Every structure is written in C-alpha cells, then in structure tokens.
C-alpha cells in the first residue's frame, strides 16, 4: 500500500541524476501573466465534446481507467494525464509560463493556497459540482481554503508515529519518545527528511505551531534535532514502512497512509502523539489559464462520485473527505481509514510560509550537515 507514495517520491531521488544542472540552466522566468477570464462566464450546458482535459497528478493517484470512463461519461473530446513526483515539480510546471496547458492539477493544500495567492486559480463554481454535497462538513472548513473557494479536497490525513507494537517495550504516546528514544530503541528510529515534516515532531513537542517562523523557536527545534541525531537509524521519507516490517526500525515518523498497519504478520500500529500533529490535504484545483473550465468542473464532479472517489481509499489506502465514498468502503480492523474527520481536524494544517520557508531549508541543511 505504501507503494503509491513511494512512487510519488522515489523518482525525485533517482531520475534527477544530472538533471539539477539542466534545471538550473533552463531557469526561465516565472511569469505572472495569465489570461484572465471573468469568473461568471462559465456555461452549465457548454458542449464538452469540444473541450479536452489535461490533468497533472501524482502517479498511481487516480484509477487507471479514469480517462477512458471520463470520455465515455462526460463526452469530452480527450483526457490526458501527466505525472509529477512532488508538489515542487508540479509548481514548476504550473508556474513556468503563463499558460501551462494544464486544466486540473492535484497539489497539497498549502500549494493550492500559494497558487491562489498568485492569482493562478479559477474560483470553484459550486453550481457546476453538485457532488460537493458528498463531502464531510469538516472538509469545507480547511484552514488553507475555508469554504472550498478555489480547491476541492481529494485525500487527507495526518502524521504520527508508526511502530512495532510487538517489539517496543512501551508504546509511544509522545513525540518525545521519538526525539529522545529510550535505550531499547536507540538507533532504531527514523525521521522524515522533507523540511516541514523534519521539524514537525520537535515543533509539536515544544508546543509551537507547525507554521512558526520565529527564529528562536526554530533554533530550539534545531537543538532538539541535533540531540536526536546520534540516536537515529536514518532520515527516511519513502521506505520507513519496509524498515518496520524488516525490524530494522521500531518507531518511525510516518504519514498515516504509509504506515502498514494492515500487514497481518507484524503488529504495526499508528499513534498521533498527545502533543498533536498536522492535517495534510491533497486537493484538486482548476487553473485560471484553462480553456476547458466547464469540462474541468465536470471532471471534479465526476471524481467526487462515491464510486470513483472511494477508489483512493480502497486501492491506495488514503482517507478521502467524501462521506458518501467512505460509507462504501469496508474498513479492515486496524486500518487507519477509521480515523474520523473530527479527529483529523484536530491537526494543524501546514500552510505556505513564503519567504520564511527558507528558514526550514536552512534548518534541514544544518541538521544534516553536522
């Protein structure tokens, strides 16, 4: 199950060999010009057969047969899917020129927020998406976009500690169990390396916001991470689930969808530490530059159909913010799909920090350099 996220990120590690310089070289400008179309020009009865859709999404994040079904059901001319491996590459794609050619993009909430602040997103027209009614009420109260004005949530989840309940002496309850591992877990814990999640456990353990930009708070986090480093097995964003299964690690910082709790042989459990955690949401957005906005709305409406939307929960083990879809899903014992929307909303959404995000980049380099 963790394979999906795995493929979402691993290419970033591998395919980039030698690309970094090329990317540097081709540094075209991020032009902020976009074709402006007034928000109220959409026609509910537009002829979709004259529109075709270009979607960008993480690989394995949508059912494979979706383009074929969309063509049959919505009668659009064509639907083409391109993949991005991280939010960052999606951003590069969407902001590199005035018209990226993309109609619908899948990005995480804080990136949708940032895109909207740059004026790149088309407001969502709720009248064209009747299936919005399928969403949990909580899913309209997400802090990066209250009321789903420019984004529609596709999947959501949180971050916690994933652990081997058969091998730990006492089950972890606090981020400090990971930050200051007891002797039996020495060098058997892993942390995530992506900047904001690298900082998350220490931020929460110290009682700070996950979105802090205060230098003195980030300095305290740095100290905590430096103290933890000698007791760490490794930093790992992709294979921590496998490390638990093999017994190489006993406790790991993990996204819920990646924690293999349904592995029958091992007793792997997931806990959201008592200090709290984050709430991440992957969303669907429509680009302002799209020339196929009616078809784009129709596609989002179709994805919110319980049958289509439940695919993500059933096949990639991600919770979806769609009540009608979740009602269809049979939740296995121990499965993290059982975490309720109310529990999720206790988490703090990670928002884009703009220029202050370089503080987290520096923190990450600093911790790893020493």
């Amino acid at each position: 199950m963790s394979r999906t996220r795995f493929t979402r990120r691993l290419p970033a590690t591998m395919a980039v060999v030698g690309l970094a310089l090329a990317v540097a070289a081709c540094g075209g400008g991020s032009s902020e010009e976009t074709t402006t179309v007034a928000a109220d020009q959409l026609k509910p009865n537009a002829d979709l057969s004259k529109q075709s859709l270009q979607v960008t999404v993480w690989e394995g994040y949508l059912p494979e047969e979706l383009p074929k079904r969309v063509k049959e059901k919505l009668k659009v001319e064509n639907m083409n899917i391109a993949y991005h491996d991280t939010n960052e590459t999606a951003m590069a794609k969407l902001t590199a020129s005035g018209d990226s050619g993309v109609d619908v993009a899948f990005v995480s909430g804080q990136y949708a927020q940032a895109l909207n602040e740059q004026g790149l997103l088309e407001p969502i027209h709720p009248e064209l998406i009747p299936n919005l009614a399928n969403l949990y009420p909580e899913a309209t109260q997400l802090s990066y976009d209250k009321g789903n004005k420019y984004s529609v949530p596709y999947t959501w989840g949180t971050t916690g500690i994933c652990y081997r309940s058969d091998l730990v002496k006492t089950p972890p309850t606090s981020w400090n169990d990971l930050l200051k591992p007891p002797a039996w877990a020495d060098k058997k814990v892993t942390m995530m390396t992506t900047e904001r999640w690298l900082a998350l456990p220490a931020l929460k353990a110290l009682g700070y916001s996950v979105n802090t930009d205060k230098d003195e708070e980030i300095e305290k986090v740095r100290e905590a991470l430096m103290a933890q480093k000698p007791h760490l097995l490794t930093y790992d964003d992709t294979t921590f689930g496998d490390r638990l299964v093999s017994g190489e690690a006993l406790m790991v910082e993990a996204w819920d969808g990646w924690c293999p709790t349904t592995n029958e042989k091992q007793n792997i459990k997931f806990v959201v530490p008592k200090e709290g955690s984050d709430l991440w949401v992957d969303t669907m957005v429509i680009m302002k530059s799209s020339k196929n906005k009616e078809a784009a709305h129709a596609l989002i409406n179709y994805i919110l159909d319980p049958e289509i939307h439940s695919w993500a929960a059933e096949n990639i083990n991600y919770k979806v913010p769609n009540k009608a879809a979740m009602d269809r899903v049979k939740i296995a014992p121990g499965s993290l799909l059982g975490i309720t929307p109310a529990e999720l909303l206790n988490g703090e959404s990670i928002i884009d920090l703009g220029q202050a995000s370089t503080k987290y980049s520096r923190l990450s380099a600093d911790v790893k350099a020493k």
Partner: protein
Amino acid sequence: MKSEVKARPVSPARGRRLGALVFLSPGLAYLVVLMLVPLALLLSDTVFQRGRFGGIVYEFTTENFERLLDPLYLNVVVNSLKLAALTTLIALLLGYPTAYLIAQLPRKWKTVALVAIVLPFWTNFIIRVYAWIMLLSGPGLVNSGLKALGLGPIEVLYTEGAIVTGLLYSYLPLMVLPLYAAIDRLDPQLREASANLGASAFTTFRKVTFPLTLPAVMTGSLFVFVPSFGNFVIPELLGGSKSIMVGNLIRDQFLKARDWPFGATLALALVVALVLLLLAQSWMARRA
C-alpha cells in the same frame, strides 16, 4: 588543429580557415548550445531572487553570494572536499597497483581483466548502490561474514564510511583505466636502463615509472574526484541523509527548498572549484 592545417599545404590560407570552421562547427555548436548557453543562464540566475514556487524573480540581489559564505554551507563544501579527496586517495592506492599488474599480464588476459573492470558499469548505478545497502546493512552479508569469523558486527551503513565505500566502488574503474593506458605505454627499455644503471626496483619506480605516469595519476584522480564531489545519490542512500554533500545541497535547493537562485549559486561555485582543479591538473601535466 595545427597539424590538420599542415596536412593541407596547398590550399590558400582563407580556404584552410573555412575548411577548419566547417569541420569544427558541429563540435562548436555542441559546446555553445549545450555548454556555454546553459552556463550563461546559470551565471545570470545567481544574481536574482527566489520565486515563491521556485523559478526566478528578476530583481537584482547579491544575497545568494553572501549566503555562500555562511559557515553552514562552507562546512558542507569542506566536508564534500574531504570525502571526495579521501575517496580519490584510496582509489589511487588501490588503482595504481591494479593497473600496474594488468599492464604486466599477457595480452589475452589484459583484455579479460579490463572487461572485468568495466563490467559493473553494465548494470544500473542505482541498483549497484542498493546492492551495497544489502551488503552493509545490520543483518547483511558483510556483518554475517564478520560474525562467523568472530569479528562481530560493525556499523557501517548510514555512516561516512559507507559513503566513501560507495563512491570508491562506483568510480574506481575511472582511476584504473587511464593509469593502465599510461603504464602500458611505458617503454620497457627505460626501466631496463634504470636497472642496468644500478637502481633498485623501488628506485626505478620512484624515479622513472611514477614520474612518467604522473599525468595519468592526475587524470585518474580528477575522474574520481569530480563525480565524487558532486554526488548526491550515494550520500542519501548509503549515508542515510545523515551527512550531506554539496550535491545534496544543490539538489535540495531545486527540488525541496524551491530556491533556484541559491541552487544556481552553489552549482556555480562547484563549477568554479572544478575548473580551478582542471587548470591545476593541466599545469602539472605540462610540467611533468
């Protein structure tokens, strides 16, 4: 180029230059389009500001160069230099005797030995690095072997030792091949003459063989040092991201931090450092 010109003594000077230009143009076009233009873009990106989503905001700043002097980043550069230099030194110590021995083999076996040296390159780089993870991991082959010998498990994976091992394994052939070419070309009569004049085997090596192969030593060292210095896959996979090299730093600026100008500045610093190194090498090669 000069010899090419000499080869056609009858043509008038202008025709010669035109001919040279025609023959040079594919190479020149390649260098201009794929080398000079990207380098110029890289250079220009270093003086602009970071866009919020990556990309470049075209407002002038010198901040990127100021950040380059931040002890944190200097530290990463120094650490990369250290690891690459250590890798190069070990590669030389292992590679020189290997190349020397291969050069002494009968012709048939030389080919076999050389094919064996390049054989690992036929497999994908990432797969070979992953193989080292399996070898070095806690319950892996190396540790179970050591355990059987009573030498007890050692912790290598996710340390700098593992990084050097991986770099060494990946780039050792690049040291052996130029050294072999140089040693094989050496006129055996020079060594015979040295021996006839009463030099011991060691003196012959020190005063004749080694100085004559010094340019190849420099070439091989560069071939190992350059890719080791900029590598970011091995530190991540074998070093467990616990220590980063300058390659990781550059990669992270583009793919995680969305800070292209600073990434370009770091890349430029890397290019400058390596060009200086190349200049030093060619200077030494000319003197040798």
